[in-house]
């Protein structure tokens, strides 16, 4: 692992993204159900697919494009596995406060990304990817996995972690290049 200095600039983005993901004290007390967890998992992955597609539309930077392609492929892969498992378990994803909060965050971030172009876009995309993966990792670790009832669903969430950690590592490296 290559040590990366705390990228102060994307800490601001992190704080913003965290608002949408880190559950409040009240939400922390209320346990999520498995259908709610399935909805959050699918939504969180779909949002990063969508960000990746924006990058593929807007960026001309080869590193950004390669990274975005990986995000689209990996997160679509995770969604496919999650949907197959939910079907098998007869779990119907249920929209909840956290799903809505994620989608609100996506709306704002999409607007922000669409307002930028060139190097400013690449930088904003890379920083947001780092912040977003960081926030999703902590939400899965501190809320989704502990609240999950079904062992197979918990297993899926657990196996997503190394994928997200890898993406975070790559995103941090990329964000550092645009400082």
């Amino acid at each position, binding site marked *: 692992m290559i040590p990366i200095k705390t990228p102060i600039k994307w800490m601001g983005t992190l704080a913003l993204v965290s608002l949408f993901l880190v559950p409040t004290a009240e939400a922390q007390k209320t346990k999520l159900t498995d259908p709610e967890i399935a909805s959050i998992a699918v939504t969180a992955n779909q949002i990063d697919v969508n960000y990746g597609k924006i990058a593929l539309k807007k960026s001309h930077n*080869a*590193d950004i494009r*390669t990274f975005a392609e*990986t995000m689209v*492929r*990996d997160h679509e*892969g*995770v969604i496919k*596995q999650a949907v197959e498992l939910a079907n098998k378990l007869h779990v119907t994803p249920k929209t909840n406060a956290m799903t809505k909060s994620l989608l609100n965050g996506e709306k704002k971030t999409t607007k922000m990304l669409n307002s930028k172009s060139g190097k400013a876009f690449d930088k904003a995309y890379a920083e947001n990817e780092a912040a977003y993966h960081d926030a999703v990792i902590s939400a899965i670790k501190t809320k989704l996995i502990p609240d999950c009832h079904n062992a197979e669903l918990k297993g*899926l969430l657990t*196996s*997503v972690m*190394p*994928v997200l*950690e*890898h993406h975070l*590592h*790559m995103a941090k490296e990329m964000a550092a290049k645009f400082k």
Partner: protein
Amino acid sequence: MPIMNKPHLMNKTKYTTLGLALSAMLFSACSGNSSQQVAHPADTGTTVNTQLPAAPHTDTIEIKGMAFNPGELTISKGDSIFWINHDIVAHNVTQFPQGHWKSPLLQPGDHFIQAFDDSASYYCSIHPTMRGKFLIK
């Protein structure tokens, strides 16, 4: 940066094809029968007795949790390696660093088998922190 596949390098005949690797597996599976004479797959036209040197062997490497497991392996010349993707995302197996040989994209559940005469390092070109190597005894 991921290493691009260099098409002209794919012509190298050093690495046996999947078909040959499979027939080698079949061959080694049959060689337990001592009364049988079998054709050597690499040497058509002649038959050999089953008094053979060690039959080609196949080792398995599992791809899981964004890693190759085992990450290091020692094999005999001509042995095959069978990579199976038990992860939740697609990966590939690419010779490191030049990309002399490369598996197709392996979706979860997909596998790739190849026989080797030389040691090599490899990685997943999609997730470049995933590395592995094998050494010829």
